[in-house]
């Protein structure tokens, strides 16, 4: 059941990527990429390793994290609910089956595509600075997010308001999504929203590279915005998580720009 979703994600992203590469990157950049990929790889290698290590730690922490959280974490679901109440239900007032289908597709497939494509697009630029900064920003997002996840034990709105949020119904109708998201993250890791922070990170980079990739910028912003709304529409995240996610994204982009500049390659 889990592999079903994985195969579907790989298939969808596998179709979208070549289309996006053809549309946004172009033949000329691919031609230079063929000649320069070794040197670009050498320059970015260390940060690529950092990101892989961070992802590896995240993988291990999916199993071990909750045990650590049990010991040091603080239960905060009540506070988020006290502060926000049923605020996320505003999204339900416009809910329709079509929107639910759109947002659940965005949440799973759109998000995966949104995160992977910039990696290819920036690697296709002669100057590796954006690629390296993107790797650094991803690593920072995951690392800082993980620290919050260990300390803050909070459940999303769907787990507090069972009948009022589309996510419950999506899980009931297509339980394979429940398996899929469970593999990515524990249900108590909602603060901050990494879906939000990584999508906004990509959107900020897309804005910064609007000269290199003018057509990608609006597409990235629309997908990122859809991912952000989907997290609340589906009831996976509180507004607070989303706000924190946006702040995390801004911080990580700023930090990645400060840490990785044009002088220090790698």
């Amino acid at each position, binding site marked *: 059941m889990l592999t079903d979703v994985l195969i579907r994600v790989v298939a969808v992203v596998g179709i979208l990527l070549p289309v996006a590469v053809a549309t946004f990157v172009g033949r000329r950049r691919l031609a230079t990429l063929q000649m320069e990929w070794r040197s670009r790889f050498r320059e970015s290698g260390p940060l690529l390793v950092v990101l892989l290590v961070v992802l590896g730690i995240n993988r291990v922490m999916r199993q071990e994290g909750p045990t650590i959280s049990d010991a040091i974490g603080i239960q905060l679901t009540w506070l988020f609910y006290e502060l926000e109440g049923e605020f996320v239900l505003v999204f339900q007032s416009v*809910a329709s089956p079509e929107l639910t289908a759109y947002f659940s597709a965005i949440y799973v497939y759109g998000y995966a595509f949104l995160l992977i494509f910039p990696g290819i697009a920036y690697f296709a630029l002669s100057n590796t600075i954006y690629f390296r900064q993107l790797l650094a920003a991803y690593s920072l997002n995951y690392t800082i997010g993980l620290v919050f996840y260990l300390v803050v034990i909070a459940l999303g709105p769907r787990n507090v308001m069972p009948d009022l949020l589309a996510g419950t119904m999506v899980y009931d109708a297509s339980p394979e999504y429940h398996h899929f998201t469970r593999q990515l993250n524990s249900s108590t890791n909602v603060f901050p929203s990494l879906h939000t922070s990584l999508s906004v990170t990509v959107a900020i980079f897309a804005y910064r590279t609007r000269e290199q990739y003018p057509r990608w910028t609006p597409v990235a912003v629309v997908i990122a915005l859809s991912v952000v709304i989907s997290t609340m529409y589906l009831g996976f995240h509180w507004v607070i998580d989303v706000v924190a996610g946006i702040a995390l994204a801004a911080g990580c982009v700023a930090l990645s720009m400060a840490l990785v500049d044009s002088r220090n390659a790698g």
Partner: protein
Amino acid sequence: MNWTSVPSPSTGPVRRRSVLAAAVGALLPTSGCVTRGVETVVDDGRQVSLSLATVPTDDDRGAIRIARHLESNLEAVGVDVTLDVRPRAGFLEAVLLDRDVDLFVDRYPVDAAADPDFLYGALHSRFATQPGRQNPFEFTDETVDRLLEAQRLASEAERRGYVADLLDAIVAAKPFEPICRPTEHRLVRSDRFEVDDLDDAPVASRAGYLHLASVEDDDRLHALLTDTRPSRNCNPLSVTMRRRGTIVDLLYDSLGTYEDGTLRPWLADSWTWEQDGHSTTISLSLREGCRFHDGQPVTADDVAFTYRFLADTAPDSAFPSPAPRYSGRISAVDDLEVHDEYALTISLEAAEAVAGRALTVPILAEHVWQERLASERGHRSSPPQGHREPVTGDVDPVGSGVYRLANRSKRDSLTLERHEEHFAVRGGDGEESAAAATPPAVELHFEVDPNSASMVERIADGDADVTASPIQAYAVNRVPADDVVEHAAQPSRTFYYLGFNTRRTPCDEDGVELRRAITRLLDKSTLAENGFDGDAVPISTPVPDAWTPAALAWDGDDDFAGNDGDLDLETARSAFERAGLRSDEDGRLVWEY
């Protein structure tokens, strides 16, 4: 998808006002906000404020629905409620160990005997100050104590009367309010395993597993489990990691076991019971040749150690520290005498009808636990009971049970393999044997699947053999109507309840009227209907119908302050007024001076 057709507990009279919305209002320019602010602070200090804990949608959709219903009605009458939703282990830690919430909604894990004596552990004041599974209500009431003891000692004929009086006393004092009894649904693929000669629900108990007969040669059972906790911790004494302990019962043996409601010898080979007035003496001889999973023999000394250890897990300390689980079941044990390697006598301060519950606790290996305890010595201050790592932490579950732990992957799966030296596997013990006719499955593989809809789908697709956890009510209508998927539906012995911490203000001993007023906000019929998709029955007492006297039997929502699902604010508020509260001009419930 139709959004409006979903029964929503929150569309009550008053919707929860969010602070976020209030904050938006506060940004607007107002005059004299300083004075208003001061008034608010003073008034807030007097408003009745309660915390209400429960578990999330993923853990138990019924419990969160009940809690939201109550939250909504409490808000409507003007109580300031903080809904505190925690994953099950964290919820149990708050309710059973830290005991720092006012109200809690959960399912009460009644043991396999399904006898009203479970109320002894639930309510006796001797457990009130001990963190653990027992008396989470911290309830102390002399009348209830006396009746709890009397029903234990009474002859079978008299007992019914004491239980009736006890239920009367509980209903009046309201340490908790029973809400409804759900139906438990489990699925078995009959092309893989057959349920062999058993009235009990399949895979719901030790017997439920042992009576599964493999249809094919490959008798590896692939079971789906909603709960991740057994994959994280198999310690029988951990109070936050256990529900009913069915997997523990597979890993550990007990002296006796319940099968179709009857207690039968299990690790005991045979026993004789003697009742003398109010006490019962059970002389047991253990099965010979039983071994723990590490190869050590099971002897009467292990049995004696178990009962002593459960009664006091810190024998070196000046203060007794009963085990956080099983204390209620063994509380009737008065004395235990070992005669030889296999023979012992247990005397209990209880009549025969009740004494059997004491024989269902897991028998622990003395050498294993002594070693664990030794690791603790030298630490000056021991953490409070229930938190003690050697007693409740993760442990390699060395029992003597039919299955041993083979493998586990935290939060994903748990694999048990058959303990070949176990008597239920060896068989050949003749008439006395409680073992099933066919040998139990070679391997039990439990895979965590948190989603009931997915569990149903996977059983239907042949991707798994049984649902080890009951499936939640919302997914029942997805069960295919074919011959291959056997659908077992039985009323649960567990029930949903609203618990009060009767030591915390305001629901403490002076708050009986307040507790009554709060229970009048529960519309049990509507909850049973909407919260459980019609698959639960509202109840008025915590015991099965057979034990409920006619005067207390469920007869509609007379106690609910409202009609047909709608709360009547006036009736509800007048109940709170009897508790010494009044509504202020903003509709909040405040304390009378």
